[in-house]
C-alpha cells in the first residue's frame, strides 16, 4: 500500500529522523514560546505584541507525568473497531529550555511500566493511523534510557 504521508495537524512538526522537531512559535517582542503554535497574537498579557516566527522546540526533555488509555477513546480519535483495543501510553514531557510541558503519545511498545517521572524522553516521528489513501503522521515521546 503506497500512501500519502500527511501530518494529523499541519505545521505542528516537521523533519525526519534526528531532524524531527515539534514546531512552535516565538514572539519577537517578549520571547514567549507557544506550542501549539500561535500565529496571530502573543498571549503574554504584558507584551504589546510582536511578530510570531516559527520556532522548533528542543528534542529532549524530562517526563513530567505519564498515564495510559485502557479503553478505546471516542471519535474523533480513529481506531479500527474490528481490532481489540490495545492500551495507549501518554507522556507529558517538560522541556527545560522552553519551560513548557507537552503531552504526546508514547512510541509504540512503551508502557507505563517503562516510565518514571523525571526520566529523559525525546520526540520522534510517529504514525497515528492509516486509511486507504493516507498515512496520518504525528509525534511520539520515547524514553532515551537516561534516568532521573
Amino acid at each position, binding site marked *: 500500500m503506497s500512501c500519502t504521508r500527511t501530518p494529523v495537524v499541519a505545521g505542528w512538526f516537521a523533519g525526519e529522523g534526528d531532524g524531527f522537531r515539534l514546531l512552535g512559535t516565538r514572539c519577537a517582542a*517578549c520571547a514567549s514560546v507557544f*506550542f501549539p503554535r500561535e500565529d496571530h497574537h502573543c498571549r503574554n498579557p504584558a507584551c504589546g505584541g510582536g511578530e510570531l516566527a516559527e520556532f522548533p522546540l528542543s528534542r529532549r526533555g524530562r517526563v513530567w507525568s505519564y498515564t495510559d*488509555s*485502557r479503553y478505546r477513546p471516542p471519535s474523533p*480519535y480513529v481506531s479500527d473497531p474490528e481490532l481489540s483495543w490495545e492500551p495507549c501510553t501518554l507522556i507529558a514531557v517538560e522541556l527545560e529550555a522552553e519551560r*513548557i510541558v507537552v503531552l504526546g503519545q508514547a512510541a509504540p511498545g512503551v508502557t507505563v511500566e517503562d516510565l518514571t517521572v523525571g526520566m529523559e524522553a525525546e520526540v520522534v516521528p510517529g504514525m497515528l493511523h492509516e486509511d486507504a489513501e493516507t498515512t496520518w503522521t504525528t509525534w511520539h515521546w520515547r524514553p532515551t534510557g537516561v534516568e532521573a
Partner: protein
Amino acid sequence: MGEVAVLGAGMHPWGKWGRNFVEYGVAAARAALTDAGLDWRDIGSVVGADTVRGGYPGYVAGATFAKALGWQGARVTNVYAACASGAQAVDAARAQILSGLADVVLVVGADAAPKGFFRPAGGDRPDDPDWLRFRVLGATNPVYFGLYARRRMAVHGDTAEDFAQVKVKNAAMGALNPNARYRERVTAEEVAASAVVADPLRLLDICATSDGGAALVLSSLEFARRHGHADPVRIRAVSTVTPRYPNTVLDLPDIATDSAVAVDPPAETFRVSIARAAYEEAGVGPEDLSLAEVYDLSTALELQWYEDLGLCGEGEGAKLLRDGATALGGRIPVNASGGLASFGEAVPAQAIAQVCELAWQLRGEAGDRQVAGARVGISANQGLFGHGSAVIAVR
C-alpha cells in the same frame, strides 16, 4: 461586597434516568421554590446554567426552564462556563440582586449525560483544542486525571491506597444522601479490584457522568426578611477568576502548558487563586471553615483540593485524609454530600448542587450526614478552558 440570601435549595436525584434534562431542571426548580415558600410567579429573574448536550434548548437553558415552568415574564439569563456553569449562574444571579435589578432569582442547572466518556461536538474542527486532544492523542478526561495522579505519587509520595481511601470516605457519606446516585459503601479492596482506566487510576477512582438537576432561590437580604426568613443562609463570596499567564499546570483540554521561558509563573496556581479570591471576598480563611465541597473528578484530585484550599500544606493532602480530618466528625469534613464520587458529574447542575449541600448543612438539615455546628462552608470546582469557581456560604 454584599451578601445574598439562599431562600431555597432543591434537586432532582442524580442517576442514569434516560429522560430529557428539562424534566430534571423543572423538578429541581419546583423543589427549590417549595423550600423557599415561594410561587414561581414571584420570581423576577431566572438564570439557567446551559448544557451542550440538549441541542438548542440546552444552549438557552434559562428560557427552556422558564417556558416549562410556564412563561410568567421573568428576566432571563443563560450561562455557559463548562464545569463552572452552575457557579457562574449563581454569580450572575447575585450580581442582579446586589445591583437592584432583581429581588429574587431562580438558578437552575440540569444535564442528561451520555453513555461513557464525554466527547467533543461532532464535525472536523482543527481550531478547537477540545476536538484536537481527542483527534491527535485520544486524550479523554481520565487521561488528564491519570497524569495528575501519577505526578502526585512522584512528587508527594501519594499511593493508590490513599486514592482508594478518598473513595471509601466519600461513598460512606454518599450512602447517607438520598440525592446521590451511588448509595453503597465501598471498600478499599473493591477500589483496588476495579479495572484500571488511566494508570494509576481505576474505575472507582474516577467520577461517572450522570443525569441530575439542581436549583437555588436567591434573594436580597431585605426580600428575605420581608418573607419571614429572619436568619437565612447567605452567600458571601463567589469567585470566578481566570488563570494568570503563564499557566504552567497542564489543564484540560490543552495539549501543552504555557511556556514560562519569558515570564515567570505566578506564585500561586490557578486552583489556589480561585480559593484565595473567595477567601478575600468573604473575609474568612481556611481556619474558619466548617466544611468543604470540592470537585473530586478523581480521588487524587480531591487530595489536590485540600492543598489548594489551604486545608493543609502542599503535599500534605494524603496525610490530612489518613488522619481522618476530612471525614464526617473530623476537623474539616470534605464532600459530606458524597461528592462527585457518589453523584457522578451532571455538568451544569454540579456546582449548584454543591451550594445546595452547603445550604442544607448550614441550616442543620443534612440529616445523617450533618456536620455538627456548621457555620461556614466553601465549594470549589474547576472545568475546561480556564473556568473554575469557589462559593463561600455562611449562617
